[in-house]
């Protein structure tokens, strides 16, 4: 890392990689003048898992499940964007019902993710009762996810050409009942977050990202919308069934009448998006057509079809944190030639620097958390090899693995 030259009045503090704000590793280097942050440097790459390299030995169906494991929270978005990119490369048509089911799952994931974030944000500013309140609501969302997909986290619902499980008519009452619960809970959370004096004191005029910076630094998702940039893949383009639905950009001026681009605005945007997600699911349930849920149910036939694809494709979708971008190049082999994953946090790293400059040390956790960063999404590529510190050989790893098995057996 480059050492910044410091004058007598400033000093440097490292924060992380085990960080108080994030449950995932990221390393900050702050240049501090008294209590104020003068400059910030971000170091990434602590959780590289070489996911893109691993894809070179897998077929597209296997990659779906690999993509799902990029991030636990975005376990629909990554396989979703990957499926979109393969479908784009191979011009695969999707049944109408599947497009609607995909929207329902994507929006349910948004509810889970935003509520998780809201809880963490409350915890960062020492408001743990709200953490429990939001996570109680999130628990309900996870139960609904389990009811619809069979799993709480890695849902395994996406497939190329559609989805794997239908939402049948007898499931609808439970879904509608839960949606009503979310609506009521939303009002409670809105009051807890937006009308509270302490939250306002901690969040207003902190971590400001101006509209110009958001555009220049290519920020995405709620982070850029909270700065007043109208950018949302769901509204901007037509994918899944979003082209048929009624939705608009969520910017903080809907509630406050003005855009500050601070942490408070990012809270507003995410909370309103929870409400929007509930409404979108309702719209889907109302107008969803009957029919097939997947273009080719026979897996062997589908794989054969995928093997023949030659071309490039892109898949974009609006994940809870912003735009997920996947690029796939297929060259007529079983495994894709290239698969590039761009998670939203990747684009939201640079905006951290203007947000953190000029703030106090105590604001680092809430400002850093306000973009809802997801480091495991961002750090995927690369091979970690510690040269000097320690090196686990394959034999040692194997030995450790055996020892653990023995321990479990006792």
């Amino acid at each position, binding site marked *: 890392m480059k050492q910044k030259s410091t004058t007598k009045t400033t000093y440097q503090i490292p924060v992380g990689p085990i960080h108080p704000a994030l449950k995932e590793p990221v390393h900050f280097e702050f240049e501090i003048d008294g209590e104020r942050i003068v400059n910030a440097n971000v170091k990434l790459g602590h959780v590289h898992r070489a996911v893109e*390299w691993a894809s070179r030995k897998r077929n597209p169906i296997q990659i779906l499940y690999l993509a799902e494991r990029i991030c636990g929270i975005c376990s629909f978005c990554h396989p979703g964007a990957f499926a979109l990119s393969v479908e784009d490369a191979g011009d695969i048509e999707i049944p*109408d019902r599947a497009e609607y089911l995909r929207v329902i799952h994507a929006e349910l994931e948004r509810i889970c993710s935003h509520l998780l974030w809201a809880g963490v944000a409350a915890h960062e500013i020492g408001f743990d009762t709200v953490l429990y309140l939001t996570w109680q609501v999130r628990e309900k969302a996870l139960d609904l996810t389990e009811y619809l997909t069979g799993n709480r986290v890695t849902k395994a619902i996406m497939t190329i050409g559609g989805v794997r499980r239908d939402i049948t008519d007898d499931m609808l009452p439970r879904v509608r009942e839960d949606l009503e619960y979310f609506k009521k809970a939303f009002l409670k959370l809105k009051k807890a977050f937006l009308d509270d004096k302490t939250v306002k004191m901690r969040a207003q005029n902190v971590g400001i990202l101006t509209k110009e910076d958001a555009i220049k630094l*290519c920020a995405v998702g709620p982070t850029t919308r909270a700065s007043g940039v109208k950018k949302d893949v769901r509204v901007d383009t037509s994918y899944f069934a979003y*082209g048929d639905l009624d939705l*608009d950009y969520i910017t903080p001026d809907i509630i406050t009448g003005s855009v500050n681009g601070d942490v408070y605005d990012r809270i507003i945007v995410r909370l309103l998006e929870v409400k929007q997600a509930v409404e979108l699911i309702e719209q889907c349930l109302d107008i969803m057509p009957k029919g097939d849920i997947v273009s080719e149910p026979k897996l062997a036939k589908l794989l054969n079809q995928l093997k023949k694809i030659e071309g490039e494709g892109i898949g974009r979708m609006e994940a809870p944190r912003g735009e997920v971008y996947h690029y796939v190049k297929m060259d007529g082999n079983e495994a894709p030639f290239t698969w*590039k994953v761009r998670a939203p946090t*990747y684009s939201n790293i*640079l905006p951290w620097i203007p947000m953190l400059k000029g703030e106090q040390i105590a604001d680092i956790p809430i400002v850093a958390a306000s973009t809802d960063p997801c480091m495991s999404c961002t750090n995927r590529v690369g091979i970690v090899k510690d040269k000097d510190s320690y090196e686990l050989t394959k034999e040692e790893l194997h030995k450790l693995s055996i020892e653990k098995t023995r321990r479990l057996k006792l």
Partner: protein
Amino acid sequence: MSKDKRPNPEEIVKYFKDEFKTKIKHINIKKRPAGIKKKETYTIWMKIDKSIFKDIIKHLCNLQFPHLAVASGNDLGKTIELIYHFTLNSGKRMEEINLNISVELPKSKPEIETICDWIPGALITEREKMEMLGVKVIGIPDDSRCFIPYDFPEGVYPWRRDETGPEKFYKNLHEVKK
């Protein structure tokens, strides 16, 4: 064309074709419909000559400030292909256009100019291309590593498929013998 204009895909293609003519090796527009109403999203794929790369970015920024999603890269054997994925026209319902600009660099001299002076948000993705593909980005404000650890050896590029690739670092755990 003024900066506030929201060009449609045909206008964008014409704008670049008129300006750069034969230096654009290939350009096509792809439509992809979705949903019951079959509303379409447009994607422009453009392959350009390396010599006009910086000029294209300049013209693009003059047309409208684009959003750079990411740059992806392919090792094609003799050349390294970089694809810059832009989006234009966001902010209005279903008007966004994807623009993918592909440029090939010879492996003997994999160099490209930085676009950080036009689009500051390109920094992370350019740093990634440097460490992953061994592309030299000329004029980049910060050339330090981004994702790869600092003790990772020099001259090994994980996305390459030749002798500079990461093969020798693989540990095939399944080959363990008792």
